[in-house]
């Protein structure tokens, strides 16, 4: 026995602290690691030899697999599947980084399906394994690096799904993509492209949180009138991160979202050519149109990121004043530029005019009467920033 007089240990032996944990806790800790790391613990001691076989999460990532070749990776994955004992599989991450492992992926997905998989994250989305479509317990699905393949146009049958995140997919136009996900609460679309279409509809009966980043067109030609229609009776939170010039123009319709409570829109113009005033003007008016649609929302924020700085137009509750602030990069603090009454159509018109004037750099600026008490200092600062 090894004794340390300085510290009291009323309930734990000194040796092998980790092994003193109850088995479920050990396998839980091992489940939080990369599966390769978990398997390595079999060599720690006889007591540890089989702990890893009870892990409830499998995390296979070719990118993190060291210098091994795809064949070894494949062998490792299949070896783990055949040796794992725990019945229930909670979570599976399978990232193959572009190495083609279609038959292996099929085996892994089949195994997962048989073991009641609930949570799947993968980049193996090339040939959609049909076994995925009827995982009866799946509640979270994350599909990464779609390389703008077509999102399967055959409707999924995943009624249990509550969270879906897809990255870099081409979304088919004519089919109402998400209406089949009856219990979907969280939807995240990253870098998805829409084919030639005028209205793109996101309709999901249980959707509460919707996040969209870099939503844009398929192909080079931009259609002026792309309209994103969100029809979700339970939607409360909407976040959109849009990057110029890929994003615009975009018109948003949230008429069928009666309890929408919080909306955050980020528009980044960092790549925007400084001389392209017309584009900027269009962008501003689109942003304002978006805000107009959102006047009924409780908490509303529009942030505009320029190369030189970031501005934020926001209010926290429906009755609160709207603040127009500059965000300082260094300190992260807000510098209040102006306070507006509630966002409503007329105020938005003023803001829109103001921003467009600032953009185009037209001088002299005809400031709406509304802004007559805006300190000249701020006007000049804004102008400098935007030029």
């Amino acid at each position, binding site marked *: 026995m090894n004794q340390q007089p300085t510290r009291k240990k009323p309930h734990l032996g000194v040796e*092998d602290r980790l092994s003193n944990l109850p088995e479920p*806790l050990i396998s839980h800790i091992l489940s939080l690691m990369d599966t390769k790391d978990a398997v390595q613990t079999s060599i720690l001691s006889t007591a540890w030899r089989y702990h890893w076989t009870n892990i409830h999460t499998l995390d296979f990532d070719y990118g993190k697999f060291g210098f091994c070749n795809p064949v070894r990776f494949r062998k490792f994955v299949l070896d783990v599947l055949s040796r794992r004992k725990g019945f229930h599989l909670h979570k599976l991450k399978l990232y193959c980084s572009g190495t083609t492992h279609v038959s292996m992926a099929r085996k892994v997905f089949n195994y997962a399906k048989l073991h009641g998989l609930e949570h799947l994250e993968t980049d193996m989305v090339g040939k959609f394994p049909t076994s995925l479509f009827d995982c009866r317990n799946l509640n979270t699905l994350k599909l990464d690096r779609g390389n703008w393949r077509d999102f399967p146009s055959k409707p999924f049958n995943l009624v249990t799904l509550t969270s879906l995140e897809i990255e870099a997919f081409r979304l088919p136009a004519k089919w109402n993509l998400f209406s089949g996900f009856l219990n979907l609460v969280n939807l995240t679309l990253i870098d998805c492209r829409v084919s030639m279409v005028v209205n793109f509809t996101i309709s999901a009966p249980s959707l509460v949180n919707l996040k969209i980043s870099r939503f844009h067109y398929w192909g080079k030609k931009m259609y002026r009138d792309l309209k994103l229609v969100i029809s979700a009776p339970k939607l409360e939170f909407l976040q959109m991160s849009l990057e110029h010039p890929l994003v615009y123009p975009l018109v948003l319709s949230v008429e069928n979202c009666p309890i929408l409570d919080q909306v955050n829109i980020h528009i980044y113009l960092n790549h925007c050519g400084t001389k392209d005033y017309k584009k900027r003007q269009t962008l501003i008016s689109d942003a304002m149109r978006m805000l107009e649609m959102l006047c009924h929302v409780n908490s509303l924020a529009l942030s505009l990121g320029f190369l030189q700085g970031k501005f934020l137009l926001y209010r926290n509750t429906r009755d609160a004043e709207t603040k127009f602030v500059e965000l300082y990069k260094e300190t992260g603090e807000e510098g209040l530029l102006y306070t507006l009454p509630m966002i409503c159509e007329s105020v938005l018109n003023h803001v829109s005019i103001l921003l467009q004037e600032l953009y185009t750099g037209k001088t002299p600026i005809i400031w709406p009467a509304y802004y007559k008490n805006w300190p000249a200092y701020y006007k000049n600062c804004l102008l400098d920033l935007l030029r």
Partner: protein
Amino acid sequence: MASSSSSSSTQVKKITLKAADGKHFEVEEPVAMEMETVKSFFVGNEDAMKDMVVPLLNVSSEHMPAILDFYRNHSEFRKRTPPPPAEEVKAFNEAFLENKSDEQLMEMIMAANFLNTKELLNFLTEAAANRIKNKSVEYVRAFFGIENDFTPEEEARIRAENEWAFDGLDED
């Protein structure tokens, strides 16, 4: 949630908890109720509130202040609207772990397990996993004081059995 909304802000009900080594801790009721083990002690037994001391057999007094601090802060985070920025929660969590040795971490995991609080347990097990991630077998063994009771032949056999897992591993 069963945390009773006692609006009498002047006098917050306290519950006395007794750590494994006999030391007493006076804890505000809502904080104490974060622990399922304590909560179940009082279920259907309202009179017990007043003067009963709840024995916590698996929690050493050394860890009580930190554990209570975690409950207080995280329940405050949960109540706040709008929710606190992720950085604030992260900063608290990092500070919480900063001076904890691996041994203390393990003891706290046992404590959280005994207290039956999912949030703390998830947080601590995650921290433990992070500490042994990407470490070589020999390193993990030394780190946690696990005695290698394999014969060299056995060890070689197990390595061969799980060959692919040990591929490319540092041998220090």
